[in-house]
């Protein structure tokens, strides 16, 4: 009882102090909080990079059975939703082209729009966003509940690195599968774009694909695949980090999953802009 009274006293003091805080202190705390968040992300990234080094040297304690299971859940299980979204994105891009290009009598150019749009941007971005919502959230929830159940502590006290055991398989699986899913998404997106071009604007298939080949090259395709690999790492990092940071209350796992999705999507959009800018600078 004494302790509770003491705590209550502390709380009221604290709230009184909060009301009268000068703005500089407020701002300092804000920066401090966000800096510590950034330091945690950097530390976590450093830890998995070191673990990856150990894996390459053959010292990491990765459990391959878990890896294959995760590989399956981030690939085959994701195919239907990736197909659906990619189909719709292809349709949307093609519609966009149909509306604007018709006015100039340049319907054939819809092939450029679809090719560029899907291969360079939308294929990788949409797959990344889907994986952030689907897999990033799942990673955070799994790891968060492992943390609450003291499974992470049990790894540590057995002298097994949770990074090797939990983070590495997830990171590797997503890094390998994101480019493959993106290729799949590209194919479906381009095909659906062509369907709209042919159906709505009467651009015949042979012309559509021939026009596309004229302006689209291997670098465009490779840029998209490169992005996919980067997004895979970002989504897995966000998911695993938010899971590891999960609190222990009843709603903590939900909060961790939400934060993983928000962080994943933000990182995807941000890094996409950086990669586009870099690609434009070096002329790809």
């Amino acid at each position, binding site marked *: 009882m004494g302790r509770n009274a003491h705590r209550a006293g502390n709380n009221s003091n604290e709230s009184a102090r909060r009301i009268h805080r000068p703005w500089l202190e407020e701002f300092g705390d804000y920066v401090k909080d966000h800096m510590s968040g950034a330091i945690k992300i950097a530390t976590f990234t450093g830890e998995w990079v070191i673990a990856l080094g150990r894996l390459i040297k053959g010292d990491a304690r990765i459990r391959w059975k878990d890896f294959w299971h995760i590989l399956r859940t981030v690939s085959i299980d994701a195919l239907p939703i990736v197909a659906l979204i990619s189909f719709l994105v292809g349709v949307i891009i093609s519609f966009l082209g149909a509306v604007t290009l018709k006015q100039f009598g340049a319907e054939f150019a819809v092939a450029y729009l679809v090719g560029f749009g899907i291969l360079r941007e939308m294929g990788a971005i949409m797959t990344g966003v889907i994986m952030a919502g689907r897999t990033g959230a799942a990673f955070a929830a799994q790891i968060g509940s492992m943390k609450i159940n003291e499974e992470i*502590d*049990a*790894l540590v006290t057995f*002298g097994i690195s949770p990074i090797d055991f939990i983070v590495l398989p997830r990171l590797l699986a997503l890094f390998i599968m994101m480019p493959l899913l993106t290729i799949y998404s590209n194919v479906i997106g381009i095909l659906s774009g062509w369907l709209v071009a042919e159906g709505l604007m009467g651009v015949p298939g042979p012309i559509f694909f021939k026009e596309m080949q004229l302006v689209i090259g291997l670098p465009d395709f490779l840029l998209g695949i490169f992005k996919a690999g980067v997004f895979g790492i970002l989504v897995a990092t966000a998911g695993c980090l938010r899971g590891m940071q999960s609190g222990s209350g009843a709603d903590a796992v939900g909060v961790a999953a939400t934060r993983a999705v928000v962080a994943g999507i933000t990182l995807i959009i941000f890094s996409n802009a950086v990669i586009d800018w870099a690609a434009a600078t070096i002329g790809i």
Partner: protein
Amino acid sequence: MRDDIKIRVENLTMGYGEVILQQDISFSVRKGEVTVIMGPSGCGKSTLFRHMLGLQEPISGKVYYDDTCFTDSELPTRQSILRRCGVLYQSGALWSSMTVGENVALPLSEFTDNPDNEIARIVDEKLTMVGLKGLEKKYPAELSGGMRKRAGLARAIALNPEILFFDEPSAGLDPVTSYKLDQTILELKKHLGTTIIMVTHELPSIFTVADQSVYLDPDERRMTAMGNPHDLIRNPPNESVKAFLTRNNTEMISK
């Protein structure tokens, strides 16, 4: 350090952020004995347990294993010390993606050179010891709370550790199961000479298994009593310990 002392906690102060939970805790764990960390709920006994295993870092103070300072050690030294310890967590903490058998086998396959059939034999032996023979293929989610805890014990003793840590082993168990677990703990101590550290507030367990006990006072935020619980109840050094050991309802109020 004296030969019979296995773990020494020195002037440990622990807390979260600026809130101090317990300060200046010092005690020694003697080899082959059962040391109980006791106190009312919320006094910080599980936190002390986590500090002894390096799962949380102290505000100040040190933990020594034999002559090695665990607190100041780097990760590889800590890992080699921890490999001599087995830990049973409150909920069992079985790895949920693995079967019971795989849970017990993992430390064996990670840290020994035993061939698969030898590992399978040890897994069978440990599961038999805790009364879970034949449940190797079950997943943790398919087991009851008590079974999960026993499977966790089988995993903790898989490598025949010198030191065993128990975090509230009888929490959530019925009195009979809890009694059996206490007997298992005594057997481990008697037959294997294992040093045991146990966090609990269950009086029957404390009086059955403890050779030594450490009492953490939640109001004073420090350790206020140390010794054999039978001696402590005869000559209680303060009212708080007396109330705790005699169930003077104080525990309920503190909750």
